């Protein structure tokens, strides 16, 4: 059933129960975990800071500052109501590549403590939740150099899954789940040993007072920026914050650097968006990160109904050289089917100074706001340039088309905010590692230093690959649901 903390009778309204699990945050991770455990009969509490719809007073709690590479307003790059940021998700999906899980000697701290196979187990369920078409091998439209590049498929959630809408009715009619709206997490209270969470403390907006929730296990699913912000703020018993014994909470923030990198003229019409990624041997040899370089139409793939197919265009009778010459003179394309855009989204290197830190300003609940510092490394920029140059060179070598590389990238000019930006993918800030010295959570997503606190969402990614994260977030949430099932039954 769905309840509203704003209309609770008193602050003791949940004091007489101990949930099996208290899930905090109702985005893709939190909603998936809560739904899985509720269906298995556990007593689930799911606490959402916002209401059922967008509300400015909730959204304003995302205020913070940024530094480094220009970044989005922090109140606009995520959503703070039922369903979380899935409410503005673009619907692009790809699983991580197998080699995204590998450690690389040239990338200290890289490598996941699990294999891709551990997540592939959940591919079918994830496909169903996200309502995806079949996962088929993409054709190599241009038949480019086999030693360097591999074509990659994106699948699109259409209509895009909004996790709040997906689970609302199930949650509302299920007796063993309590969804509590307008419940802002303000503290986690530990037991005397400081080894386990005893309770979570919440506050609503207008009704004064705070209420406490007890549970056997807790799952923090607030998003890749709010998870570390909350843990750093949770210093009422541990000065450094919960899970921060090794000064890792908030560090190693990862984004996918997104950049339009060029224009293309092709010999045969583009009918679908094409994506190329580097083979692992190429990545290692060229000392670059993973990337996805898309060829197609920037305007079309930004539409909410884009499914990979490009709009049919009239047949073109103009020869290739005439088109190329016109495009080189920046003339308006006479044959839209034969010209297009090149765009890269790339993995970032791990950098401890890309991080979430607390600032002195406090929000209405007394928690400190945060600063997000994000910048790109030389390797990140080299990855973008290598991606563009490799595809451009191979298109010319195979004589399938020609590509112009944008000026800033070709000439090593620092990009402005319109030339390079993030993908609203917030990852890495409570990273997963088998070693507590190098990670906040273990391979089962349990905070190393606590017996019953788990973290869901992309903040646990130790590295990011180039794939949009929602697919992997959902896989990890299903896997965590299974792990918690065995924990709660033991």
């Amino acid at each position, binding site marked *: 059933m769905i309840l509203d903390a704003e209309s609770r009778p008193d602050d003791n309204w949940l004091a007489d129960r101990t949930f099996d699990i208290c899930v905090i945050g109702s985005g893709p991770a939190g909603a998936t975990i809560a739904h899985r455990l509720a269906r298995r009969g556990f007593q689930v509490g799911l606490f959402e800071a916002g209401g059922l719809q967008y509300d400015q007073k909730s959204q304003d709690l995302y205020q913070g500052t940024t530094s480094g590479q220009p970044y989005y307003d922090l109140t606009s790059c995520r959503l703070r109501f039922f369903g979380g940021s899935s409410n503005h998700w673009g619907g692009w999906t790809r699983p991580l590549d197998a080699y995204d*899980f*590998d*450690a*690389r*000697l*040239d990338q200290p701290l890289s*490598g*996941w*403590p*699990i*294999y891709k*196979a*551990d997540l592939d187990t959940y591919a079918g369920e994830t496909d169903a939740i996200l309502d995806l078409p079949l996962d088929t091998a993409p054709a190599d439209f241009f038949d480019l*150099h086999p*030693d*360097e590049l591999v074509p990659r498929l994106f699948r699109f959630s259409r209509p895009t899954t909004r996790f709040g809408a997906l689970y609302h009715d199930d949650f509302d009619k299920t007796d063993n789940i309590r969804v509590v709206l307008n419940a802002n997490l303000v503290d986690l209270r530990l037991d005397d040993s400081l080894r386990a969470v005893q309770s979570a403390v919440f506050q609503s907006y207008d009704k004064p007072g705070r209420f406490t929730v007890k549970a056997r296990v807790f799952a923090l699913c607030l998003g890749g920026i709010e998870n570390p912000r909350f843990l750093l703020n949770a210093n009422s018993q541990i000065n450094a914050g919960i899970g921060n014994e090794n000064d890792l909470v908030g560090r190693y923030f990862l984004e996918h650097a997104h950049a339009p990198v*060029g224009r293309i003229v092709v010999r045969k019409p583009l009918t679908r968006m094409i994506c190329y990624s580097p083979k692992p*041997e*190429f990545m*290692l*040899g*060229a*000392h670059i990160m993973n990337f996805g370089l898309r060829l197609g139409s920037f305007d079309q793939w930004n539409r909410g109904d884009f499914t990979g197919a490009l709009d049919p265009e009239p047949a073109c009778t103009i020869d290739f*050289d*005439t088109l*190329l*010459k016109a495009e*080189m003179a920046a003339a308006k394309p006479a044959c839209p089917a034969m010209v297009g855009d090149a765009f890269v989204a790339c993995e970032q290197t791990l950098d401890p100074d890309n991080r979430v830190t607390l600032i002195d300003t406090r929000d209405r609940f007394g928690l400190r706001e945060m600063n997000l510092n994000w910048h790109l490394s030389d390797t990140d920029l*080299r990855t973008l*340039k*290598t991606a563009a*140059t*490799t595809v*451009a*060179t191979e*298109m*010319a*070598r195979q*004589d399938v088309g*020609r*590509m*112009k*590389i*944008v*000026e800033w990238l*070709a*000439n*090593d000019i620092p990009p402005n905010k319109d030339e390079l930006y993030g993908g609203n993918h917030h990852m890495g800030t409570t990273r997963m590692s*088998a070693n507590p010295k190098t990670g906040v959570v273990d*391979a*089962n997503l349990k905070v190393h230093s606590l017996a019953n606190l788990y973290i869901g969402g992309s903040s646990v990614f130790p590295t990011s690959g180039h794939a949009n994260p929602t697919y992997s977030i959902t896989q990890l949430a299903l896997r965590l649901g299974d*792990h918690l099932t065995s924990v709660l039954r033991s």
Partner: protein
Amino acid sequence: MLVRDRLTRRHAIKFLLAGAGLPLVAGLTLPGAAVAMANPDGGTDSFRTGSDRFVIHQGWVLRSDDLPRLAKR
């Protein structure tokens, strides 16, 4: 559940090779020349990968015979 706590031998060898900057696949051509290329004056520069020669002209990556051919049109 599979939990990895160490690199496999295959991975370790692969990473050592990469760390030494050695080519990992026989015949693999890296676009190093192209990556280093820039033509800030908007002019034309050329580079080779393998036996192929390319030019960069105002940001366009072209085959070496493109510009003479286009000039005749």
